[in-house]
């Protein structure tokens, strides 16, 4: 029996069009647009000015506090503008525009760094590098990694979980990375285990990625501390709480963190970035992005510099299809719809999904028929139909009592609703106000 989380979940069509496509390196763009807030927390502070020459990997925006992250120049070149742009989340924010120096060889040098297995750093030094080199959670949440790794006294940490689930349909960035950089990821895991003083790590991978599971099993066969766990395919298993429950049968308490049950969870992409930061002193300047969609001529996985406009990615995948109606940053379940393709890739961009024709439309909402499907699929044990109702009627306090704030916004309820009700839209709205009410109270 494959492990999974017990309550709720759905199984949307997987549509992993790019799972057998090796990651290709996208040419370095002529201009990059680097937003200063690519992570959860305080935006970074810009420390360069217009007309400044920057080297590749140079810090251009400094971490603005503890829960923040450094941002590095993804190319060598000249800062041409400090501008406001709309990012993948749809918000306007400060952004550093750099024109790539075409003569600077560092921009085009060999970036496939050799495997370096040995490390002799102290835990503190490891954490310092993770913080210095701007590593954030690459699974999509973009939470600064050093914060997660800063284990307070009294917390009993005994297991590191590596999230290789990639439960979002269409996306294959993590899948390809696990196949192509398996050894580096294992070194990254050992580095983190050393830094966190734990002797147990589990890589959780859904069973639709057999090749990645087998690859890791082969590579880690003589390392008893690292287990590879095949998981039943079920969305949203990549959610931290669901993954911890699936792998260890431990339930993260309401409003708690995995650390409360002795676990830290990191995405495989983050682990690879940590490997590069610790072993090669390489800051987070690029990431794997899946560019996909049923009508795309050549859906692909790319290594992309942070700040590359999304239009470059779509062009590299064969250009935007004729009847494109929706462009999503991320996967179809939790991704953000974009207004245009001018927005740049940031640290959290795991995929670009192009949706064509009728598939982009939402069905017209009908009355709730109280079928209870949304209740059945909610992985958090909530009652989405009730929460929507409360949010619609403005009963936010009651909604908070019904645990609206524990919603992880996975979208399973909206996905299954046979009446096409915009459940998650209203729940998000209710959450926002319930949160405000809570913070007003003190």
């Amino acid at each position: 029996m494959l492990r999974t989380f017990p309550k709720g979940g759905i199984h949307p069509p997987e549509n992993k069009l790019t799972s057998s496509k090796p990651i290709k390196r996208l040419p370095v763009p002529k201009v990059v647009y680097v937003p200063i807030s690519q992570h959860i927390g305080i935006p970074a502070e810009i420390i360069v000015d217009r007309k400044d020459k920057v080297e590749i990997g140079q810090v251009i925006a400094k971490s603005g506090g503890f829960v923040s992250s450094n941002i590095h120049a993804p190319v060598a070149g000249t800062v041409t503008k400090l501008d406001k742009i709309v990012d993948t989340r749809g918000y306007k924010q400060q952004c550093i525009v750099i024109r790539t120096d075409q003569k600077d060889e560092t921009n085009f040098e060999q970036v496939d760094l050799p495997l370096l297995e040995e490390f002799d750093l102290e835990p503190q030094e490891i954490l310092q590098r993770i913080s210095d080199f701007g590593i954030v959670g690459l699974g999509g949440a973009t939470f600064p990694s050093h914060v997660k790794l800063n284990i307070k006294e009294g917390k009993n940490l005994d297991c590191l979980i590596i999230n290789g689930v990639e439960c979002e349909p269409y996306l294959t960035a993590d899948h390809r990375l696990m196949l192509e950089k398996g050894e580096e990821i294992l070194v990254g895991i050992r580095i983190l285990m050393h830094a966190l003083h734990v002797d147990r790590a589990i890589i959780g991978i859904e069973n639709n990625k057999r090749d990645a599971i087998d690859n890791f099993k082969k590579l880690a066969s003589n390392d008893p501390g690292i287990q590879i766990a095949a998981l039943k395919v079920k969305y949203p298993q990549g959610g931290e709480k669901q993954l911890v429950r699936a792998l260890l049968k431990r339930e993260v308490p309401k409003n708690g963190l995995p650390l409360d049950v002795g676990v830290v969870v990191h995405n495989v992409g983050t682990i690879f970035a940590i490997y590069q930061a610790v072993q090669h002193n390489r800051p987070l300047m690029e990431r794997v992005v899946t560019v996909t969609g049923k009508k795309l001529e050549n859906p692909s996985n790319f290594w992309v510099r942070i700040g590359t406009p999304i239009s470059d990615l779509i062009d590299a995948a064969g250009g935007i299809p004729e009847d494109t109606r929706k462009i999503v940053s991320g996967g179809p379940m939790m991704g953000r719809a974009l207004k245009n393709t001018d927005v740049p890739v940031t640290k959290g961009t795991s995929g670009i999904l192009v949706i064509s024709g009728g598939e982009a439309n939402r069905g017209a909402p009908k009355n709730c028929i109280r079928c209870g499907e949304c209740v059945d699929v909610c992985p958090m044990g909530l009652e989405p139909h009730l929460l929507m109702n409360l949010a619609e009627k403005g009963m936010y306090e009651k909604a908070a009592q019904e645990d609206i704030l524990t919603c992880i916004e996975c979208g399973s309820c909206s996905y299954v609703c046979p009446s096409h009700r915009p459940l998650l839209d209203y729940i998000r709205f209710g959450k926002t106000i319930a949160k405000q009410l809570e913070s007003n109270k003190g």
Partner: protein
Amino acid sequence: MSDQPIIVSASPHVHSERTSKSLMYDVVIALIPAFLVSLYVFGYSALIVTAAAVISCLVFEYLIQKYWLKTEVTIGDGSALITGILLAFNLPAGLPVWMVVVGSLVAIGIAKLSFGGIGYNIFNPALVGRVFLLVSFPVQMTLWPTAVENNTSLVDAVTGATTLGLIKEGVQFGETMSSLSGSIPSAQAMFLGITSGSIGEMSALALILGGVYLMVRKVISWHIPVTVLASIAVMTGIFWWIDPEHYANPLIHVLSGGAILGAFYMATDLVTSPVTKKGMVIFALGIGVITVVIRLFGSYPEGISFAILIMNAFVPLINSYFKPRRFGSRIKAKIM
């Protein structure tokens, strides 16, 4: 890029294939076997009653929504169609058409639309229509044409009591189960459907067939039908075990009357049943118990319609008491 505008909406950006409409039409499909059996047993009279109920339900919904409420007309969503079929299934074949029309008006007009239409009704519309007819026209509503094999003509001359009616009357007049056994149809006959009763409650086999289809299609779950039937069987079993001469055995109770029709199709109505599995079990348990109490101690021989309507009223209460367990609410501090 196309000239049509780009859509910017919040996630999720995909949706399952299933719609309310497809759910409703699955129910219609599930009811076909039972309908065919009723045509075989009752001939045209079953067809006339069913057609009258379906057409009048659709027409009333259309007229009321279009000319009175002036809202969107929803007759295409399949729900009024189901109400019509289920209402007919709960009526005796040969009931005068005008009564069927009155029942449809009550079902659609009062039980469904006056509450706000699909999704807002508290009580199962078909059952409200049926019970309205039962208390208004008790004679016609209990005039059961007896099944005659190879009968293709309109039967209304031959009428007989239902199995449960026979038992109830017999026991009241001092007979015992063994003296009644000659006049009660065999379990096999009840299972296949050669007996007397409402149009749709004939064949347990056909009804279960459709019920299994609904479960396979995940329109309903096993919780309600199994709990209703099991609680009827257990409770009647206890009485039968204590006094087999005055109480029918559980098999008769499960197979006769509307138990199976009610358990699979009426009690499982999505709108009027609880949303959680726990709630469904409580709801179904209530239906089973009330049905048996009415059957054994009430003045009506059959009580599942009343039982479902009574439990319908408790659904909001059940929904607020039997909630799903919130993730992380029971903290297991167990560290392996």
